[in-house]
């Protein structure tokens, strides 16, 4: 009597994978496969695990689904997963890195950083005296010494609001993928929740 010995297949999953629109994902894209039998290795590599989408978004492939798909396609194997259980998929189209818009964006960020960092330093020298540093900057630009120049302080106030909004808000974009990215506050909330859960678990374990 001959016992059927299943071939051992080891699969090492990546944690992250970026894929184009309307492109299917195969095992060989997201994982490394180790197996003694070359033909099985080749078969496993060509298993389709994700059907491409025509919309930019984030998605994930759970590890158990990958095992299920491979077991359906290839017989007589044992699968051992190494590495993370899930894969984060980033579905995105070709990015247009050229053009005037990109240049304007970079110029805008540079402008904000240039004057902002400069003003922050001047403010520091002036003992965090905002009106004093504003008057200093106003004098530098116009050459007129004026107390409380409203032409600078009103835009400064509005700009502060804009900056806060830019920092906290989620991104407004046509692409679903960009809108799925969390803002910093949401990230902080998630980390805080996680810390609390860890703490509770730790307390429970002690008793």
């Amino acid at each position, binding site marked *: 009597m001959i016992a059927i010995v299943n071939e051992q297949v080891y699969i090492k999953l990546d944690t992250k994978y970026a894929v184009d629109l309307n492109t299917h994902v195969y095992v060989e894209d997201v994982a490394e496969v180790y197996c003694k039998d070359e033909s099985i290795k080749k078969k496993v590599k060509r298993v389709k695990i994700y059907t491409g989408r025509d919309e930019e978004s984030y998605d994930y492939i759970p590890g158990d689904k990958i095992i299920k798909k491979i077991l359906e396609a290839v017989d007589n194997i044992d699968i051992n997963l190494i590495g993370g259980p899930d894969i984060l998929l980033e579905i995105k189209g070709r*990015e247009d*890195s050229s053009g005037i818009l990109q240049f304007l*964006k*970079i110029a*805008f*960020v540079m*402008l904000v*950083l*240039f*004057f*902002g*960092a*400069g*003003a*922050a*330093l*001047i403010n*520091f*020298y*002036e003992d965090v005296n905002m*009106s004093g540093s*504003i008057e*200093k*900057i*106003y*004098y*530098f*630009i*116009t*050459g*007129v010494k004026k107390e*409380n*120049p*409203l*032409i*600078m*302080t*009103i*835009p*400064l*106030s*509005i*700009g*502060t*609001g*804009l*900056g*806060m*909004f*830019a*920092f*906290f808000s989620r991104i407004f974009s046509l692409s679903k993928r960009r809108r799925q*990215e969390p803002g*910093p*506050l949401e990230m*902080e*909330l998630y*980390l*805080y929740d996680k810390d*609390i859960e860890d703490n509770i678990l730790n307390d429970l374990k002690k008793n």
Partner: protein
Amino acid sequence: MFLSFSAGITIGSAAAAFLTLLRIVPRLMQLTKTKSRIKLYEYTIVVSSFFASLIYFTDFSLNASKYISLLIAIAIGIFYGLFASALAEVLNVIPVFVKKFKAKHQLKYIIGSLVFGKVVGALYYWLIFKKS
């Protein structure tokens, strides 16, 4: 002269460390999708700090139109807004409040009121408080 030089080095590295801690530049890069230009942004901050020190300690003036100062003030304001909110975020106040009041899905209203309050407070300070 050596004393002031070392003082400058201390101030410069402290300012750079502070900016790095607040993660303003990464946030701006995430918003504008320009991660590849990080070197450019670094040099911008370095050059800007140098010129700011120079402007502060000299009596030099450009004698330009005052409308240029309006644009510059908006840029400074945006940076300060990012700065203030990054600082508030590092201090971890809002997550605690949101947790306490179970207001996870009303987060956008909290942010909205924060922004609104900031602008109103700043305008009050400059227009009414400073006048009297």
